[in-house]
């Protein structure tokens, strides 16, 4: 196959490219330039492009750079800023996968006559054996390395994208990946994983980044009786469940942010159990396979993951009209911040069914 491999300059995508070459594919490496602003971290820095290009040279494949910075700004950065303005939780890495890697890039690959795109994500795509003549069906499975699993951030892949995407390192442990990189002498072999939001510079930080883009409003911190107990300089930076930085006097019971009203710039604090909910509503739901979607009124038992490395919890999923549904937790669950991505797995917690956004 002709495969376009997205090379971020990290070890996983370096080894992904190497594995594709070994498997006999015709491989071209691409690095997406996503962010025009200054940033010393993540996928967009010149140093990372240098690493990706050098690895491609070492592997003997061509390497190109595509400038998708306008799309990235529109689909990832602007919504990130807006989410903070509106008091919801943004998911920049997921939106980048949804709109850039598995949309803009895969469409570009298609236009350029590639058969597939590949990335270094730790997740697995499996083809379900079906009867002859049937359309092939594709399953998205957690990565083999439990600690590295990234199925959460690629949960939006549908049948069309699953059919044209390859995750060559999804079946490997991180140690295996690093060992392969080291054996091949790739310069990324011991490079640390990227941690931060790629468009926010390490020296700049989130607060400075946001502060130059949206006006911060100071907020009243009140208890559940409505009495003011503290003050925050920026209600836009307060997160549900937060405990520190609320201007509360020391001592007394631990108090958590249990609600944020952005209209009145009010932060409500209270006991931890006030965060517990038994139902979570989810919107903008996408399914790995539309046939998995239960009929209206029916339920589906699922395991649910609500953050990139959070533990999955059992719930019963009920569909509602439109792209919405409700999750009925089998035991009380700490409330999920609105805007957070919620991903459903099968009851064995292995295969991705789909996901959406918590309301």
């Amino acid at each position, binding site marked *: 196959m*002709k495969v376009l491999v997205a090379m971020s300059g990290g070890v996983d995508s370096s080894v992904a490219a190497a594995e594709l*070459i070994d498997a006999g594919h*015709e*491989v*071209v490496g691409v*690095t997406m*330039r996503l962010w025009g602003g200054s940033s010393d971290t993540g996928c*967009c820095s*010149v140093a990372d*492009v240098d690493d990706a*290009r050098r690895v491609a040279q*070492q*592997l*003997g*494949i*061509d390497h*190109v*750079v*595509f*400038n998708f*910075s306008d799309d990235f700004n529109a689909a990832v950065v602007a919504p990130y800023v807006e989410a903070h303005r509106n008091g919801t939780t943004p998911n920049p890495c997921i939106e980048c996968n949804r709109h850039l890697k598995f949309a803009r890039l895969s*469409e*570009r690959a*298609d*236009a*350029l*006559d*590639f058969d597939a795109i590949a990335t270094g994500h730790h997740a697995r795509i499996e083809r379900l054996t079906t009867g002859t003549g049937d359309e092939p069906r594709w399953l998205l499975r957690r990565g083999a390395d439990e600690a590295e699993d990234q199925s959460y951030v690629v949960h939006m892949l549908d049948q069309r994208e699953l059919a044209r995407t390859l995750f060559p390192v999804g079946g490997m442990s991180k140690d295996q990946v690093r060992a392969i990189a080291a054996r091949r002498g790739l310069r990324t072999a011991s490079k640390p994983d990227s941690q931060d939001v790629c468009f926010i510079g390490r020296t700049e930080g989130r607060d400075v980044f946001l502060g130059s883009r949206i006006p911060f409003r100071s907020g009243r911190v009140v208890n559940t009786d409505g009495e003011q107990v503290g003050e925050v300089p920026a209600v836009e930076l307060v997160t549900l469940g937060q405990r520190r930085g609320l201007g509360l006097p020391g001592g007394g019971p631990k108090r958590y942010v249990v609600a944020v009203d952005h209209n009145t710039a009010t932060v409500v604090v209270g006991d931890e159990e006030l965060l517990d909910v038994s139902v979570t509503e989810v919107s903008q739901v996408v399914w790995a396979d539309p046939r998995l979607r239960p009929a209206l009124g029916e339920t589906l038992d699922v395991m649910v993951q609500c953050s990139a490395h959070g533990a999955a919890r059992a719930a019963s999923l009920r569909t509602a009209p439109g792209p919405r549904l409700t999750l009925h937790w089998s035991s009380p669950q700490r409330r999920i911040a609105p805007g957070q991505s919620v991903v459903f797995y099968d009851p064995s917690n292995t295969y991705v069914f789909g996901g959406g956004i918590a309301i």
Partner: protein
Amino acid sequence: MSARQSPVGVNDADQVVYLDHAATTPLRADVLEAMMPHLTSSFANPSGAHRLARTARQSVDEAREVVAEAAGWKPGGVIFTSGGTEADNTIVTSIARSGVGTVVCPAAEHHAILHPVEAHGGVRVAVDAAGAVDLSALAAALDSAASGVALVSVMAVNNEVGTVTDLAAVAAVVRRHAPDAVLHTDAVQAGAWLDLAAIGSVVDAMSIAAHKLGGPKGVGALLVADHVNIRPLLLGGGQERDRRSGTHNVAGIVGLAEALRLAQDERADNVVQIGALRDRLVDGLRTEVDGITETVPRDRKVAGSAHLLIDGIENEALLFLLDRAGVCASAASACASGAMEPSHVLAAMGVTNSTGAIRLTLGAASDQADIERAIDVLTESITMLRRRTASTLR
């Protein structure tokens, strides 16, 4: 290292059509031959006090005369540099630091002028729809500079779209509205196509670079008139009459001189022959494919330049397909990561949608077969991209 794979879509990797001469040109064999002694036996530092040094010094002195002759300049005004960028930075920085007024340039200049002008708080002047400086805007800018104008820098030929500036007309405006200003031209893209002596006769300073003319990379010159004082960017051994320190790049300087002499000698013939090939490329392509606009009318451009706006494609995708098929072309300038950046030149010209902008630049080595192959590959690639992206292109 593993063996290089056969690139996707390339049947014959040897069949490369090079249409990126505005980026750089291949080193001419006769230029390399002139340089070779200085890369081998004649290796001495020309600033030394022995016989080998004297030999090297003679080569630099002779090269200086050749460059001066080709550009209609005095040998004493030729300052050898590491290339066009250093020449441009030297003139802008030197004059800006003299503190006698502001520095002025058009908005479509090369970044080697634009960025130092911006760094010194200079003034950017509007350009017309072809990318040439707007003379009334220039006059207005010169009149309104409160602290006076110390330098006006206007490129002879635009590197992206190939537009030729009427420097005599620019000079007339500058002499009338800012009589004390130094008029400099970045002539880096002009040497293969225009008479440098004619340009030199109307300006006070000029930048040139060897690698746009069949010479080596890493060498150029800043040409200055007697009354233009240069404060060096690089301090050190005091070479180039204390205007540019650093051991002379003797082979490069000899290569620059030979390349410039040959380019100016062969210029008239090349303009006719390469101009005809350029016309065939553009006309042939426009016959085969609809929705292609020439960014600048041909009578305002140098003979080797084609710059096109192609409907319904993204230039980044087109360049990829051209590359796979062995056709080397360009869009706007590339940033540090290698990604294509939106063109400041096209923006200054008022081109609102430059998504399909592509630059094809010919040189002395271009031939009819190159052009026919380029037409075929471009036609095929544009057609395929339009077909395959019709449903997804926003």
